């Protein structure tokens, strides 16, 4: 390895160093405030160090391919981890006693996510996925006295283990067919292998897709999502929704493109079916949810269904095509918008809900009690729903343009139909916040004092959502350089 390779690996190295320092600190003197600060500084430094990677795309060992869009997403994921870290500062937010181990797990998961994003080989894909997953089980179950998180963690653990087994078996089958484990190697050999051993390839790729579909909670692999979302402490839910799912989607799209799977009609057909079912099931089941985290769980199923539309649009396209690039751009934009919007929504939920499961009722009249938090949640909901001036709308705009350009009529119709019914449940959240209490002359509930940083964080995220929606050109230019 050359020196420049180390620069390129900066995000991974930065996180690793932070993890080691926190471990040493915990073994010398237990102090969770100190651990928090070390983690915070470490993650911030990692974020800064991302720009050290200068020459790309660069293959660092067979395991990692450092390219601009990978670096962009690893920074975005790191921001997600940073927000999670900020939300986990005090016990009031998390609902359990935070110790050093929690920060350690958080950092390990983040490392797993970054590895997953930058992976260019089945081995690193698996490593990242497991590192991310195993730390996450522990984070979900961290409030050990509480039955709900435990239930969620065990559900996630058992199903995740099954998914990992499936993934490994899928790898084995693909390896048997192609004799290669790196993305590009598979890509080069898949088409000839597909003719020689069609069954192996079909079985291998579909097992892979099922396993990744599980992690992305695509319908019909979505059963765990609502329970885990609800059971986990809100900061952890935030982490799961943004970091874990975001990284997984990036990994899927990288594997699809480098592995030339987009040339492979059966795989794309499976993806389209998953997309359609996810959009319908997610939106449909979200309609009747009374608990905001469950609602967002179902809505995330739908959103990843939307995202798959952009992936399906890659079918039959050449990498020289203009449409090919605009489809990558759509994935990048939508995912970025989704992650930022989710961060905004979960920040508010963590700030309001506190330790108990935030029932919809605890949001009643929020507009009159905590206007900043309520406005942020409103903007987040409008962005999820795809109302103009928010990031989510431009994401939808990208997807519709793409679907029209590539003639994906069925997916387009499902997307429009799904978005139309989705408005109902997003609006319900907004309406709940507008309620002026049952007795009209006594609607003023006393203001609960909250530290400034909570409002500040909410405002920053709200502004990002709006800025991305109103003035996207700089970001689009930035993405085109990726």
């Amino acid at each position: 390895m050359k020196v420049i390779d180390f620069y390129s690996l900066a995000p991974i190295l930065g996180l690793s160093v932070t993890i080691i320092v926190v471990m040493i600190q915990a073994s010398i003197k237990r102090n969770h405030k100190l651990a928090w600060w070390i983690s915070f500084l470490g993650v911030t430094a990692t974020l800064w160090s991302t720009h050290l990677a200068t020459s790309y795309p660069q293959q660092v060992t067979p395991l990692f391919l450092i390219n601009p869009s990978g670096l962009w997403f690893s920074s975005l994921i790191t921001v997600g981890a940073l927000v999670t870290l900020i939300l986990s500062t005090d016990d009031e937010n998390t609902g359990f006693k935070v110790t050093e181990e929690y920060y350690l797990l958080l950092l390990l998961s983040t490392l797993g996510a970054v590895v997953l994003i930058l992976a260019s080989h089945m081995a690193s894909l698996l490593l990242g996925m497991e590192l991310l997953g195993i730390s996450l089980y522990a984070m979900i179950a961290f409030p050990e006295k509480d039955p709900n998180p435990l239930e969620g963690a065990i559900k996630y653990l058992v199903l995740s283990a099954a998914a990992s087994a499936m993934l490994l078996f899928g790898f084995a089958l693909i390896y048997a067919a192609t004799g290669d484990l790196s993305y590009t190697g598979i890509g080069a050999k898949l088409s000839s292998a597909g003719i020689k051993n069609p069954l192996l390839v079909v079985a291998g790729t579909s097992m892979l897709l099922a396993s990744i579909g599980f992690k992305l909670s695509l319908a019909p692999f979505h059963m765990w999502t609502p329970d885990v979302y609800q059971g986990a402490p809100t900061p952890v839910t935030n982490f799961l929704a943004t970091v874990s799912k975001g990284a997984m989607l990036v990994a899927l799209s990288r594997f699809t493109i480098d592995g030339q799977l987009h040339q492979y009609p059966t795989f794309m057909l499976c993806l389209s079916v998953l997309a359609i079912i996810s959009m319908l099931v997610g939106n449909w089941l979200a309609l009747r949810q009374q608990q905001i985290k469950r609602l967002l769980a179902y809505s995330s199923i739908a959103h990843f269904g939307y995202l798959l539309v952009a992936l399906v649009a890659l079918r039959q396209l050449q990498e020289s095509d203009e449409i090919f690039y605009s489809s990558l751009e759509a994935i990048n934009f939508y995912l970025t918008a989704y992650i930022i919007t989710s961060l905004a929504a979960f920040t508010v939920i963590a700030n309001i809900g506190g330790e108990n499961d935030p029932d919809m009722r605890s949001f009643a009249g929020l507009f009159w009690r905590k206007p900043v938090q309520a406005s942020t949640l409103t903007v987040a909901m409008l962005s999820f729903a795809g109302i103009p001036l928010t990031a989510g709308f431009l994401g939808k705009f990208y997807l519709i343009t793409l679907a029209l350009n590539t003639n994906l009529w069925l997916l387009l119709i499902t997307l429009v139909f799904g978005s139309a019914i989705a408005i109902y449940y997003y609006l319900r959240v907004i309406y709940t916040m507008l309620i002026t209490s049952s007795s009209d002359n006594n609607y003023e509930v006393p203001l609960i004092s909250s530290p400034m940083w909570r409002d500040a964080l909410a405002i920053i995220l709200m502004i990002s959502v709006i800025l991305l929606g109103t003035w996207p050109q700089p970001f689009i230019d930035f993405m085109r350089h990726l």
Partner: protein
Amino acid sequence: MVIVTLIIILLIGGIIALLSEKLSEEAPRVTALLSILVSLIYLMLQIIKPDYITVITQSSLSDPASWLMHLKLEWIPAFGISIEFALDGLSLLMVALTLILGAVAVSASWTDIKKHQGFFEANVLWTLAGVIGVFTALDLFLFFLFWEVMLIPMYFIIAIWGHENRSYAAMKFFIFTQASGLLMLVSSIALAVIYKEVNGQYSFSYFDLINLPKGYLTEYLLMSGFFVAFVVKLPGFPFHTWLPDAHTQAPTAGSVILAGILLKTGAYGLIRFAVPLFPSAANDFAPMAMALGVFGIIYGAMTAFAQTDFKRLVAYSSVSHMGFILLGVYAWNELALQGVVIQMIAHGFSSAALFMIAGSLQERLHTRDMREMSGLWKFMPKMGASAMFFIIASLGLPGFGNFIGEVLILLGLYQVSSWMAVAASLGLITGAIYSLILMQKSFYGEPNAHRGETTMLHDFRKREMLTMYTMMGALVLLGIYPQPIMDVAQTTLIGLIDAVQLGLVK
């Protein structure tokens, strides 16, 4: 820049109104009224120059620079989206109507908003800003943006200050408009994609898209996207079901804005976009649309007749009146379109006034049920006389704007399809029936026994009468001397008719 400034005045006015809540109860209302008046005066000062009629008559579709105002700034060049506003005669009339009725709306809700006044007035102003955007945006993306964004403050108005069933009504209103809007969005993007196939880059500009050649089937499909969005908003039969709920549950100012202004965005969209962008599809679709119009007229009138709720009756009468607009638009000749413009303005005033009266009644009687009202004239002669005035105006008595609108539409329609015109004129009779029933049940007759004469019912005060006089004056002026309005709209309408002719020949 005039339009941008107008929108900014209203947006900032909203913020000031929101903040001024802390000063006093009066402050938000005063701020709202002032910012509307300032925008109105500003618009007039910018427009009314000695040569403005000549400028209006020069504006042509092929050259946006010849319009009264035209502004184009790059916004998202990656998709050919720009901030493009333009003002011609039609838009000018609509913007002026919006501002005048906005002032009426603020006046109508002067006393009945008891909580969060600042936020209320802010929402009123933001809705107006959105509507002005809709009437002047000529980039399809920007148009869609305003189309959706104006819903949010309106949703707040219904959901926070509405009546007993506000949650349902607000939700229904939002979902209907947003879901149909999505179809329009898909159609607009499809147009931009087609433009790209021809010219190599995206464009959402109206002036680029209006002469875009496209396959017949595509054209038909895309037209239906626009048609559904606008007809939901208009509302035309069978997409009208959100309207009675939204109008009935909204606070008075909300109903005034909804009936007076928001419905007109649908009509405006049909005239500006749904027909000219898709000439041959619209031409073939016209009989269907006109049939929907006739259904709407008769169905609306019959349902209105069956109502016991004062506001619901007025709401259904709007469905009936909007049927005329649908007919007029799809008759697509100068006479009918002039009628549509007059009808839009006249209906704006008459329905706004009736909703204001309904709101005042509810404020005083705490009910909208006409079975509980009777003989109110005795207690409130001024309100009764105003109601009488607007009811006979809206049923189409000669001498008022509504008459001119309906007659012009029928005249124009007769040239296209005499049967439709005959069927539609039934609406004039049914209109008279339900309107007079409304008057009869609420203001005439013996005073309601159990309500008693002891109830303190104060009549319209000066502020309310002033608002009423303004609208009365406007309606009479429209009825007696509509020519100036027709002059302002004429060039736009002829330009659009010619563009469609050209498209049909191609």
